[in-house]
């Protein structure tokens, strides 16, 4: 044994953390390298090195560590890369299941030539020159008989018919064939996909000029200038068309709450409830200019007159009213939900407005090659080039789906992770500091001090953890701000978690203080707090470290539980627990599974990884434990 130690003591000595890690990687693929015997370890390594080496021998521990590092990176680096806007909500995109294929149009459509494209919340419908309908993207609703059919499932009669017009509502689709037949499918909760009998009889006699799918409603404009709106119009009263307009309408532009009507004399009328859009510029209404085209976004509308002059009105937010400088004649107008765009006769696309879903980031090809057709609806944008090829940009989808307010769940899970992991960690730090203070003081001094401190520990231990945590949280809920509530959470959890560890520390100290090295230190006249901190603490450090790890997993679960009940981190600040706060309702559990399954899985994974690390640490520090 002696001569083996002499063989390469230097090499063994230098072997640090990194080497141990590489050795672990090597061991995964190559056969096990030689273990040091206990005596060699004693002679050559500090205890910390031994622990680290032992830890890296533990495969599950490594897995846990890597998993935990991945989750940390995901949450902390992720929240730096993906900023969150807490006030943002986009109800059009509510409750959409995970999907990242909103812009993945079928190649068949391009081969047959694009005639028209229209987008809904999470899908787009395309009409080819051959009269075929293609739908791509993600189904935006749950499917229930009578409530909704899948938008992606093009009905058989539509496949057979020769379609001439398509239009997508937010969650349903309208299609018109060459025999003046109208087809609707998708969400039908306000019967927006069911044809009213009055409309059907009119369809039999009058040709249709325009079909429009709106948010929860549908509209048909007949060639005789009559407009028919049905579906969910209770909120915006779009079904009330002014009498003086009826019969004179030549074109309509629809958004969620408004509809801009272009009349036969070239004036513009706006119906609906959004007042900013109803403030139409005077010259568009007094007949001084003749409007030829109109489009409408959520809170804005845009009109083009005969002279090629653009008029934009409505909400100035997102710079919607600031038309960028452009050169050339305007060929076509387009409007997404929070964007306006124009296509110039030289094939250039000018787009402005909100960029939250990257609607303004034109692909290289759109910037360099002339565009012949431009389709901007909702958050998806499509441009057809001269050679018939198609470019798409805008909202690609949501990998984790969206919640009830249309917020991206991925962003919320990332930022929620940051909050949950931080709250858990600080709660553990608070509890460990208290536990060490109580445990060490009580254990070392004994007697009356011990008695008093331990009675106090008993007191905290007898408090029922969860009930008291939610009671405290509810009592202070009204009195502190939302940010301070997060701090309150950490403090409440920290102050209720420590007794177990304090007892453990005390018991260990009772063992340690009888040992000879403490006697020696006392004999040397070392001061009490130095004996505790310098001599005893290092000996119980192992135990404390393992307990911290396991307590961290526990506090993550506690935070999630508290927030699930609504007593933890308050929305709109996300945390893994409060993301699934709404999952107390059965509808959410059944239809919107991604809203509880994904954040829940993250909690489980994080706690699992931390527990694995804790178990591996315990075995690394106390090899006898693994024999158990």
């Amino acid at each position, binding site marked *: 044994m002696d001569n083996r130690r002499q063989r390469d003591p230097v090499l063994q000595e230098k072997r640090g953390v990194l080497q141990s890690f590489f050795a672990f990687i090597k061991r995964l693929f190559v056969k096990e390298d030689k273990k040091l015997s206990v005596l060699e370890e004693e002679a050559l390594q500090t205890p910390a090195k031994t622990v680290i080496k032992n830890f890296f021998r533990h495969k599950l521990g490594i897995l846990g560590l890597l998993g935990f590092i991945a989750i940390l990176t995901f949450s902390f680096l992720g929240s730096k890369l993906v900023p969150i806007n807490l006030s943002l909500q986009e109800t059009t995109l509510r409750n959409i299941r995970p999907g990242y294929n909103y812009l993945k149009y079928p190649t068949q459509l391009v081969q047959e030539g694009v005639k028209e494209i229209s987008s809904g919340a999470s899908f787009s419908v395309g009409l080819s020159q051959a009269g075929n309908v293609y739908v791509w993207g993600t189904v935006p609703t749950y499917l229930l008989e009578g409530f909704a059919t899948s938008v992606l499932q093009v009905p058989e009669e539509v496949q057979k018919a020769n379609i001439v017009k398509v239009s997508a509502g937010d969650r349903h689709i309208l299609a018109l064939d060459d025999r003046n037949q109208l087809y609707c499918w998708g969400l039908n909760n306000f019967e927006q996909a069911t044809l009213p009998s009055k409309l059907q009889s009119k369809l039999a006699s009058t040709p249709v000029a325009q079909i429009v799918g709106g948010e929860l409603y549908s509209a048909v404009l007949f060639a005789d200038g009559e407009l028919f709106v049905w579906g969910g119009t209770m909120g915006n009263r779009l079904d009330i068309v002014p009498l003086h307009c009826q019969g004179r309408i030549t074109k309509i532009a629809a958004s969620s709450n408004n509809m801009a009507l272009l009349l036969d004399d070239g004036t513009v009328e706006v119906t609906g409830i959004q007042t900013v859009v109803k403030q139409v510029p005077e010259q568009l209404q007094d007949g001084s200019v003749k409007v030829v085209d109109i489009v409408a976004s959520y809170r804005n509308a845009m009109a083009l007159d005969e002279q090629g002059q653009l008029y934009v009105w409505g909400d100035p937010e997102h710079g919607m009213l600031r038309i960028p400088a452009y050169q050339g004649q305007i060929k076509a107008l387009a409007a997404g939900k929070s964007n306006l765009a124009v296509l110039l006769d030289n094939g250039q696309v000018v787009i402005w407005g909100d960029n939250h879903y990257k609607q303004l980031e034109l692909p290289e090809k759109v910037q360099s090659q002339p565009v012949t057709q431009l389709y901007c609806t909702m958050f998806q944008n499509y441009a057809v080039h001269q050679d018939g090829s198609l470019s798409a940009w805008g909202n690609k989808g949501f990998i984790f789906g969206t919640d009830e307010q249309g917020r991206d769940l991925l962003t919320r899970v990332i930022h929620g992770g940051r909050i949950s992991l931080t709250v858990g960690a600080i709660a553990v730090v608070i509890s460990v500091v208290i536990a060490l203070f109580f445990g060490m003081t009580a254990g070392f001094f004994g007697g009356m001090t011990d008695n008093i401190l331990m009675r106090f520990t008993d007191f905290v231990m007898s408090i029922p953890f969860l*009930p008291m945590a939610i009671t405290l949280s509810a009592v202070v809920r009204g*009195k502190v701000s939302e940010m301070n509530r997060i701090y309150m959470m950490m403090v409440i959890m920290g102050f209720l978690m420590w007794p177990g560890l304090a007892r453990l520390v005390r018991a260990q100290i009772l063992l340690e203080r009888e040992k000879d090295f403490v006697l020696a230190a006392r004999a040397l006249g070392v001061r009490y707090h130095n004996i505790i901190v310098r001599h005893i603490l290092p000996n119980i450090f192992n135990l404390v470290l393992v307990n911290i790890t396991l307590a961290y997993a526990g506090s993550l679960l506690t935070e999630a539980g508290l927030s699930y009940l609504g007593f933890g981190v308050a929305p709109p600040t996300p945390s893994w627990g409060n993301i*699934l706060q709404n999952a107390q309702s059965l509808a959410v*559990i059944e239809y919107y599974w991604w809203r509880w399954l994904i954040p829940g899985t993250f909690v489980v994974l994080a706690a699992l990884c931390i527990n694995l690390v804790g178990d591996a640490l315990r075995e690394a520090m106390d090899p006898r434990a693994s024999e158990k």
Partner: protein
Amino acid sequence: MLRYIVRRIISLIPVVLLVTVMLFALFKVMPGDPVRMMLNPGLKAEHYQAAYEAMRLKLGLDKSYPEQYVRWITNTLQGELGWSTLENRPVKDAIKEPLKNTVILNIFVIVLELAIALPVGIKCAVKRGKLYDNFWQVFSMFTYAMPSFFVALTLIYTISIKLKLLPPGGMPLTIHGKGFSYYLSWLRYMALPVITLTIISLAGTIRYVRNAMIDALSQDYIRTARSKGLAEKVVIYSHAFRNALIPVSTIVIGAIFSLFAGSPITETAFAWRGIGHVLVKALNNRDFMLAIFMNLFLSMLSITANFVADITYALVDPRIKLE
């Protein structure tokens, strides 16, 4: 022995005092005016002030805090626990039904848990390191990392929504029939919460039994028993298990007391009207009287449970020094 018990009781006094003082403090800082809550809001303005003052005096709010504390304790001991605004009846009555529901739920949980954990824990200890043991280790690894609401949601999604086997939550109603079918409906409604609570607590109990059994199996008398040529079954059940029962008895005692302790998360997830769910509802509806009494009840319960567990431990294990 008697001296030990007396000493233990004396050491309880400061704990009980601290708990009650803390709850009294909570009682004082809770939002809302307790006097106004007790008054009839339909009172005319001129009578209101007089009635307010009268009620203030009646509740003793003009006295000093220590006096109010003593009064509160006396009232509580006499069963005057205050008025629950959520249930609109005295707290004393409002707590009865949820307590009954929680106990019924927990009886099943405890029976199921012990029925699984005891044999599994013993077998794991005997087959330490084998496949059987490893399976349960992995099981506990996962269940340790699972928040109870996640287990609840997963069960609701798979068993009641997808497979449509059991109701997803709620309480059995009398319309579910009479006699046998009524009791059967209780079982159906209880099944998922019971499974959830069992899964959550199983891992810890199995680990506890396993460790107790491993300790017992590593004793010298086991080697003696084996070397005598006793059958392995006799060694395990007659020699080892009986000794492992000493630490196990503590968890049984704990389990008996935990009958009354509701679990806020699981009961809320399944809308089971037990102590935990009613506590959450009370807090959401600012019914702090009910909430604080529940906290008082649960802390007294855990103090008693710890006390009884300590005494039992000392009784069953003569090796414990009653210093």
